[in-house]
């Protein structure tokens, strides 16, 4: 890992959020399908670090993302950075204009079945997704 990567590294005990903008990523019981965590078309999976944000602030970020691309915000899948680390992925801070807590999960294996296996483990660790407040969907 380079010095820059070390500086941008996210600690294992942090919680990460993946905003769900496609309803079929959610099963009827609100568990999350692994499809939501496949990193294509880029090598990175985009997430938001919880850090010190309150729940409402996190939802606000999700709403902003959804509005910018004219999608409905259905929910949020929260998981620990440690789960990504267990599978040799890197979680790297990547702040953007509207989201200083933005991070990328990188270092995915190139082959699709291995990506699916990791995505399944991340999805399993989420348990149930959080439903977006009704004024945001």
């Amino acid at each position, binding site marked *: 890992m380079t010095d820059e990567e070390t500086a941008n590294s996210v600690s294992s005990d942090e919680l990460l959020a993946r*905003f769900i*903008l*496609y309803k*079929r*990523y959610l*099963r009827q019981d609100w*568990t999350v*399908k*692994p*499809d939501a965590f*496949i*990193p*294509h*078309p*880029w090598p990175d999976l*985009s997430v938001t670090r919880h850090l010190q944000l309150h729940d409402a602030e996190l939802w606000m970020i999700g709403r902003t*993302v*959804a509005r910018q*691309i004219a*999608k409905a915000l259905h929910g949020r899948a929260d998981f620990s950075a440690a789960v990504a680390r267990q599978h040799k992925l890197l979680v790297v801070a990547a702040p953007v204009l509207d989201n200083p807590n933005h991070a990328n999960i990188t270092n995915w294996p190139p*082959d*699709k*079945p*291995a990506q*699916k*296996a990791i*995505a*399944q*483990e991340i*999805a*399993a660790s989420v*348990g149930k997704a959080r439903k977006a407040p009704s004024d945001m969907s």
Partner: protein
Amino acid sequence: MILEMTASALLTYGALASQGNSDTARFIAEQLQSGRHHLQDSQVLGLYGKGVLNDLFQVYEECLTPNWDGYGALPVSETAYILAQQFLDALPLGMPPPSFGAEPDGHLTMEWHHSVRRTISVSVSPEGELHYAAILGSNKAYGTEVFYGEAPKKIVDLIYEVIPS
């Protein structure tokens, strides 16, 4: 010539590609295919009878435009859709219906899900590959099988491990 094909034979085997080139081999293959389609329409045995083709088409329609997931997803191609139909067609009769989805790389997915620790997902790529990953308690299985018109035994066996018949 009288050819008798029992439902049990059709239940036991998935779609079988004909290995022969003779008129008889072709006739048998056509009759088998016709019999399978008929049984696939059954509400008890068949996936078509359970409405899976409508569900698959809905997902395909939803994912036809780029960025359908809000994160820059690739559209699902017609080729992937047709291959997904063919894979469904090749599955053994009596198999429980999957739930359908799509992945951001444009693959269609079929999931047989019992719980988060007992689940299998199969991705159908436009190139005719079936990428699968399964969690079975503390065990995992994943890999790729090329789809030649027959449902790969490895995948069928995993589905039955997730959802016992």
